[in-house]
């Protein structure tokens, strides 16, 4: 009797998601080799409604026994995941929680508010009251709001001025252009919170172009891109740290889900991964040179 496990996540359209896809594929190979009776089916979808359709297909066609799902968005996928659960499958939810509690058997996630908070804490160690920062946000989504709100809450009362914040959509090009405009607009910027390593790449390019990358100016991104981690290891000062939001969480979720069939102990529960601050000291342990991210 084969154990069929569906794995559903958004189609990678940026590097972080590509890293996740890579980790998922690695885990599939590893787990299928380890357990011949386990069949993992990876499906990715370009939008929430396609993901809902993909979930329907996993049930009606593949008759899965368990589902590992990284929902595109929480709200729209709550009902479709509930339908999968009603078909009798075990549910593992990754990263973005569903909007109705109690559907998932296992929950594996990074920590978005924590990411914002950790970034702010680091900012405060480097800045003084009266210093100016600008923020480049992601795509307008819940994740972005959580990170941003936690960051702002932590900065509260520090005396650091947030000059403005614009959406750069977790995209290098937008990061570059928004930063160019910030630089034209504000003559004095001391630091940039770019929230994401892709945006940070654009920001750094804009800073270098304008020649404003000296004077202790620094940029904080986030997620844990391998190039960023490498440059932190090399002691780069413009992007001195990174805040982890590991794409490998999907692999963790697949491991745990398979374990729930294979283990003789209970595996249900919540696994929350930390938002570690990556510094030159600890960078080496987060560096995966083969991953696309």
């Amino acid at each position, binding site marked *: 009797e084969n154990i069929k496990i569906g794995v559903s996540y958004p*189609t990678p359209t940026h590097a972080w998601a590509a890293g996740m896809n890579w980790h998922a594929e690695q885990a599939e190979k590893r787990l299928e080799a380890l357990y011949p009776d386990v069949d993992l*089916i990876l*499906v990715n979808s370009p939008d929430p*409604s396609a993901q809902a359709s993909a979930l329907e297909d996993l049930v009606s*066609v593949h008759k899965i026994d368990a589902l590992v799902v990284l929902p595109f968005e929480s709200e*729209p996928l709550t*009902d*479709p995941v509930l339908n999968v659960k009603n078909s009798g499958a075990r549910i593992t939810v990754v990263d973005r929680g569903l909007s109705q509690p109690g559907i998932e058997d296992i929950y594996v996630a990074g920590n978005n508010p924590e990411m914002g908070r950790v970034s702010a804490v680091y900012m405060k160690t480097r800045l003084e009251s009266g210093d100016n920062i600008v923020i480049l946000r992601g*795509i307008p989504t819940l994740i972005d*709001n959580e990170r941003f709100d936690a960051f702002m809450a932590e900065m509260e009362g520090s005396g650091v001025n947030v000059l403005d914040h614009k959406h750069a959509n977790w995209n290098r090009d937008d990061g570059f252009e928004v930063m160019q405009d910030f630089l034209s607009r504000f003559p004095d910027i001391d630091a940039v919170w770019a929230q994401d390593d892709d945006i940070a790449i654009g920001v750094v390019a804009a800073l270098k172009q304008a020649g404003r990358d000296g004077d202790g100016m620094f940029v904080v991104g986030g997620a844990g891109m391998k190039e960023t981690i490498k440059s932190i290891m090399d002691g780069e000062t413009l992007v001195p740290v990174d805040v982890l939001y590991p794409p490998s969480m999907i692999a963790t979720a697949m491991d745990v889900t398979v374990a729930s069939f294979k283990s003789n102990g209970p595996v249900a529960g919540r696994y929350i991964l930390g938002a570690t601050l990556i510094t030159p000291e600890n960078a080496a342990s987060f560096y995966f040179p083969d991953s696309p991210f």
Partner: protein
Amino acid sequence: MTVLANSSLGKGKRMSFDIKTAGPAIALILLCIIGFLLNPAFLSEGNLTNLLTRSAFIGIIAVGATFVITAGGIDLSVGSMAAAIAGVMIIIMNSAVETLGPGLATVLLGCGCSIVLGIGAGWINGMLTTKGKIEAFIVTLGTMGIYRSLVTYFADGGTLSLDFAIRGTYRPVYYGSFLGLPIPVWVFIVVAVLGWFLLNRTAFGRYCTAIGSNEAVAKYSAIKVDRVKTMTYVIQGLCVSLATIIYVPRLGSASSSTGVLWELEAIAAVIIGGTVLKGGYGRIGGTILGALILTTIGNILNFTDLISNYLNGTMQGLIIIIAVWLQRGDWGKAKAKTN
């Protein structure tokens, strides 16, 4: 070369007529065979029902788009319009639940608002193109951006979700069925039949075709060109609102990513079905088949892991081109006619 084209055209007239009618149908049947060969579960009742239900959204919107395109227009705003309407519906229903309770009244209020909004949005597109004399492409590109950003604004960048209490009442509109067919499929059938009748059997349909074929002739033939064109956008808006009414109970939410690229899918369905993009020639039946073809392609790609997930788009692109190429004999003719 024209020599050949002409003679083959002359001779093939009867034949190409058949290909034209059958083209999209053949493409769909081929796809179903491929699907079955890849995985026999493709033809299971459950999957076919899923497929039909899914086609309903794009299909209903594409019926409206058939009118707009037949009359020589284009509407790029439908996807964002759907998202914005869904958002407003949810806000209204959520706030109505306090006064009206989570029952039928609230759901009907939401649906009513959806229809009013859809008609209104279509009317605005129509008036801007006709009275404002701005190209439809620009008008609807503009309203596309406006609606998309409005829904983001309403949702504060996140997701608007329907009150759980209302969901219970509203759920059957998507998940329920009647005589073995899901409700969305029934709505799709009704919209398709009405659309077919309107386009092929009424004066209004003739007027759309005439305007798309030659606006000056239409004007000299006592057709109120501006009014008819505006009406096509209103019909499009109404179709979008109907699609939204059956979409909202499916996922119970709306966000800035709702309905992204639906406009391209709807237009693609219309063109795959044999309607001419420059106007003057519309086929509702073809549009329905076009919508089914598009949904089936996505469905089949979910059925196999032969192809790298990343290449889904390549397969989709190839299949769309091939599906239309299957009826190219007809295309040559249709195009020559429009000139």
